[in-house]
């Protein structure tokens, strides 16, 4: 589904912030991406969702070598991914409903086809009574839930979330994590970038930790690792 081979990234003429990153994500896997603040988690996620081009190395996404894929074909790959941005990136003049429905609208669906699904999803994330609210009237936690709903509404093959529970209380955080787990159970590969150790400990999933620009893989403490993830990672490492 997604693989990195010796990928390096530097901004302009600065130092290389990601070095020799190699890993693979297979369908249906669940990973945490961890590291201290400034370790490069967001940059690595941006490389994953084609928001950045690597300085070196090779990225394959959904079976395509990104370096040789014409840019006109990139949107179709992006539509197979859902992204939760750390700063939410909601469109201010659109309602919560319209923000969540955006990926479906981009995919060309008619509003009548997705209206019920979007309302149900918003209700599920606890925003059933805030459907027509615009982002400026939502709290930080509510905005985050709208951003998460937008990322998952199209049932993506790959979900990338950057600190998705950073602005919500523990109860909502757990609820959102279970939403990701449920999506994962239905076949979506999930990568959650977080520095929240309590969140990592909630699910037995492998941890990809960024240290000094390098990626280190950590097994979950219980050792009950998702077999598909173990196989994929091992195949790249070997």
């Amino acid at each position: 589904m997604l693989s990195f081979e010796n990928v390096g990234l530097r901004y302009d003429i600065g130092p290389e912030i990601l070095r020799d990153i190699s890993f693979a994500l297979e369908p249906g896997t669940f990973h945490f991406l961890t590291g201290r603040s400034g370790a490069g988690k967001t940059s690595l996620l941006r490389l994953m969702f084609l928001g950045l081009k690597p300085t070196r190395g090779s990225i394959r996404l959904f079976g395509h070598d990104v370096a040789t894929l014409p840019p006109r074909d990139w949107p179709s790959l992006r539509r197979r991914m859902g992204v939760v941005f750390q700063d939410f990136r909601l469109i201010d003049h659109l309602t919560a409903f319209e923000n969540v429905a955006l990926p479906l609208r981009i995919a060309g669906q008619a509003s009548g086809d997705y209206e019920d699904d979007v309302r149900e999803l918003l209700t599920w994330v606890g925003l059933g009574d805030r459907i027509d609210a615009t982002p400026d009237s939502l709290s930080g936690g509510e905005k985050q839930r709208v951003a998460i709903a937008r990322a998952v509404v199209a049932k993506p093959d790959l979900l990338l979330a950057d600190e998705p529970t950073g602005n919500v209380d523990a109860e909502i955080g757990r609820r959102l994590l279970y939403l990701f787990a449920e999506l994962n159970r239905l076949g979506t590969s999930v990568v959650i970038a977080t520095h929240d150790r309590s969140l990592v400990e909630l699910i037995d999933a492998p941890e990809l930790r960024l240290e000094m620009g390098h990626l280190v893989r950590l097994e979950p403490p219980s050792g009950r690792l998702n077999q598909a993830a173990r196989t994929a990672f091992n195949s790249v490492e070997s």
Partner: protein
Amino acid sequence: MLRRALILVGHSNAAPILPRQGTTGTALVIVMTIMSFLACLAVWATISIAGATHTWTSSISNTITVEIKPPETGDVDPQNVKTALEILEQTKGVASAHALDAKDTAALIEPWLGSVGLDAALPFPVLIDVKLTARHDIDVPALTAALAKAVPGTVVDDHTRWTNRLLAVSRSLTLISLTVLGLVLLAATAIIVFATRAGLMAHGGIVEILHLSGAQSDFIAGEFARHFLRLGVRAGAMGLAAALATLLLVYFATFSADEAEAISLVPRLALSPLSLFSLLLVPAGAALISTLTARLTVERTLEQMP
């Protein structure tokens, strides 16, 4: 076909992804309204000049004037007039020939000499107004030679010197008005390009979200095209309204003047059905330029994004 057209202008029943307010300021609407106003005036000028030239030239192009000059003493010999009329009537291409009498001649010079009438002591030439079946039917040099031989002192004026000068002036004015129209279109296009780029910068966050959510350039460009379509239609309509108001003002102001007969010629032509229809094309053109320019500008900008 309809679906393709709707995609081209970014049609959608859903709320616009770009905010109605703030993408482009009021200043842009004002500038585009002024551009549309100037374009309307340029279109009106082009059509009016062409219409006026056609009216003026067509009224004299199928006529020639024969002038029989009087001898140094006395009046023109009536026999010479009769001879000239006989030659004219036998000439191929002449529909009719009519010699102006003293009353007609007095009417012609009345604007310059007043209504005092002709002084009988003054020698006046006799003018023969000749109507042609068609301009190309008559051999003017041959007619001139025949008349000069039969009636010495005869001059044939086929008005080509006048019409050629008029056409030269008309062509110059038409070229000027078309140049003005072209410059207005060029300026309007440049303004839309600039405004679209400013809109892209102002809404870079929205564009990035759409881009990263998998929106094709066509989709994003359609959103901008839809916004600028509305702007173009609005500015074009306001420019047209201002231009029509101005033309009507000029029309009635000049028509009510004492010398309305002389100076209302062009304003009267300006309000012909053709002129009005052509002016209606200006808002459509403004909308089309705005839409296509915005779309192309956005697509080119998005090509440079990762």
